[in-house]
C-alpha cells in the first residue's frame, strides 16, 4: 500500500452521524471485483442534490470530515476501497467503527479521531470556506485546519508505523513464525479439544 506521511488537500465536511458502511458502499456492489472501480460506488445511494461530495466547491477533496461513529456496521473492506479509490486518504471524526478503522489502516487510509467539538468546528470552517485545505502530518500527529490551528491527535504506534512505511503485516508476522509454531505445539497439549475431531 502507499505510505502515508504528509498530506495537504481540500477537505469536505459531512454533518452526518453514524455513517455506516452500507451507506459508504451499498451491499449490491460487494460482489464486484476491485477492478470494477469502487470509487464509482462511494455513497452511491446518497448522491442526491446538495450532497457535499457532489458540490463543485469541494472538488478534489482528499480528506473527509464527518461526525461520530463513522464507518459503523458491516466489516466490508469495500467501504474503505470505495473511499480510497474515490480519492480519499484521510477521514476525521469524533469516533469510528472499530472494524472500519482497522480496515482503513490496512489500505493506507488514515483515520483521525478528534474531540467532538473540535470536529464540529472544523466542519463549520469548511462549510464557511468551501474548498479550504487541511494539512495532516502523520509523523508529528497533527492536523492543521483552515484557521491555521494545529490539532494534535493520538494514534496507535503500530498503525502509525504500518501507515508511514506502507507495511504488509503478513511479512511482519512471519518474523514470529517460531513463536507461532511453539504456541501451536503447547496449545495442542493444553487444549486438545480445540481442533474439531468429529
Amino acid at each position, binding site marked *: 500500500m502507499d505510505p502515508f506521511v504528509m498530506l495537504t488537500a481540500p477537505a469536505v465536511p459531512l454533518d452526518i452521524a453514524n455513517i455506516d458502511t452500507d451507506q459508504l458502499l451499498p451491499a449490491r456492489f460487494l460482489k464486484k471485483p476491485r477492478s470494477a472501480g469502487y470509487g464509482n460506488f462511494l455513497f452511491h445511494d446518497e448522491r442526491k442534490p446538495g450532497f457535499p461530495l457532489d458540490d463543485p466547491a469541494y472538488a478534489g477533496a482528499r480528506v473527509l470530515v464527518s461526525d461520530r461513529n463513522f464507518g459503523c456496521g458491516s466489516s466490508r473492506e469495500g467501504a474503505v476501497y470505495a473511499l480510497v479509490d474515490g480519492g480519499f486518504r484521510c477521514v476525521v471524526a469524533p469516533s469510528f467503527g472499530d472494524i472500519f478503522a482497522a480496515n482503513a489502516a490496512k489500505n493506507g487510509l488514515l483515520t483521525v479521531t478528534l474531540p467532538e467539538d473540535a470536529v464540529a468546528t472544523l466542519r463549520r470552517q469548511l462549510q464557511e470556506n468551501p474548498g479550504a485545505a487541511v494539512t495532516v502530518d502523520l509523523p508529528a500527529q497533527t492536523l492543521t485546519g483552515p484557521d491555521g490551528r494545529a490539532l494534535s491527535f493520538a494514534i496507535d504506534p503500530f498503525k502509525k508505523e504500518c501507515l508511514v512505511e506502507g507495511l504488509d503485516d503478513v511479512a511482519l508476522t512471519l518474523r514470529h513464525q517460531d513463536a507461532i509454531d511453539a*504456541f501451536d505445539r503447547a496449545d495442542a497439549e493444553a487444549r486438545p479439544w480445540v481442533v474439531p475431531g468429529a
Partner: protein
Amino acid sequence: MTVQPRSLFEKVWDAHVVATRPDGQALLAIDRHFLHEGSFHAFGMIDHAGRKVRRPELTFAVADHYVPSHSRSKPIADPEIANMVTMLEANAGRHGLRHFGLHDPAQGIVHVLAPEQGLTLPGLTIVCGDSHTSTHGAFGALAFGIGATEVSHVLATQTLWQRRPKTMRITVDGVLGPHVTAKDLILAVIAAIGADGAAGHVIEYAGSAIRALSMEGRLTVCNMSIEAGARAGMIAPDDTTFAWIEGRHYAPKGALFDRAVEHWRTLPSDDGAVFDREVTLDAADIAPAVTWGTSPETAVPVTAAVPDPGAEADPVRAGQMRKMLDYMGLAPGMALEDVPIDRVFIGSCTNARLEDLRAAAAVLRGRRAVVPGLVVPGSVPVRRQAEAEGLDRVFIDAGLEWGEPGCSMCVGINGDLVPAGERCASTTNRNFPGRQGPNARTHLMSPAMAAAAAATGRLTDVRKLDVRKLGAS
C-alpha cells in the same frame, strides 16, 4: 503471592497471546476462522502472494449471504450471484477447507450454523469477515468481525495483530416481563449507551437476566454487540452452555468433553475483576422495543411516540433527527403503534433460531397476516425442526412465505429486497438507510413483535394481543 482477579475476556485474551511488541500490539492465535462468499477478496490476496492456508482444519467456509431463499432445485438465475456461491466453493476446495455449500444438510447462516455444529466453544478466539461474528461470544468465546486484509492475514498465519481492547461490563439484573425478549434487552442496551457507546471495548454481559437466557437468547444479545460499537460481546459459560454443546457434531466427545468442561469452568470472571466501564440496567424497566430511525440506537418502547427534533437543543443533532424522520417517513409526536407497515421479515443471524420461530408462530397461530412477509430459518436443521413442529404451517396458513436458510432480506444481496419506500417490520440487526434495499424503511424488533405487526398491519405491542405460548429470544 496474590493473583490478580481477571475477567472472562482477560483470561481468553491472555491464553492466546503468541507475541507482544514493545508498543503493546499483541499477536493473537486464532482458533476458528469462518468464511463466507464475501471472502473472495482475501483469497485473491493470499493467492496473489502465493501463500497457503496455514490451518485448514480450523477454517470453515459457509455459503449464506448470497444463497436463494426460494427453491434451490434450479440454478441461481443471476450469474453474478451464482458466481459468488461457486467462487466460495472453488476457493474452499482449492485450499482443502470444509465447505458448507448450498445443498449441505447443515447449511445455514454462519452464526447459526457454527454453534449448532459444535464449532463454537467457550474460550476460543473466533474471527470471520462479518461484523456479526460477535454472536459467538454467547459461549464465552472471544469472537469478532474483521475485514478482507485481516481475513487474508488469518488465512496465511492463523494469527491476528490486535491491541488489547478496553472492557465494559453490562449487568442486567431482575426478570424480563411477559413478551420481553433478548432482542428487547439488547435494543435497550444500545439505546442506553449509543451506537458507538462501546467502541474500542469488549462487553461482558452479566446479571441474573442474562443468566436466565437460553443459548438462543444469549446469541441474540451478543450478536448485536457490534450495533453498540463493541469489538465483541461475551457471556460467561455455564451449565446452560455446556448442555447445549454436548453431543453436537464437531464438539469434543467423552473424556475430552469432560476435560474441556473442567477448563471452561475456570473461564468466568473472577470476583473482583475490574472493568474499564460498568453499566447496569434493570430488566423490569425493559419493554418490547422498536426503532424509529436509521440507527439501532433509536430503539424505544413500542408504546412511545416518534420523538420531536424541535426538542433537541443541539442544531446538528436536530438536523440529523430530521434527516432520519424524513427517510423513515415519520412525523414527530406520532404514536409508534399507529405506524402502518407494508411487510415483515423474520430471520437473520440475530433472530432465526428455533426459539425465535416458535415465538413468532405462537403469535400467528390462528391469525392471518394482513401484509406480505417472509420467514427465513437460520439453518437447514432449524428449518427441519420447525417443520417437524408444524411451525411452517402456521406461517404459511397466516399467508407468509417460508424460505430456505440464509441471510436473505437482512442485507438483501441474494435478491430479497424490501421495495423502495416500503416499511418493513424486521427481526434483523440494522435499520441503516438502504440496508434492506434502496429507500427501504426498517423497524427493528423481536420475532414476537414482528409477528404481531404482521397480524395487525401496524407496529403493535405484542402484549396487547392474546397469545398463549410465551418464551423467545
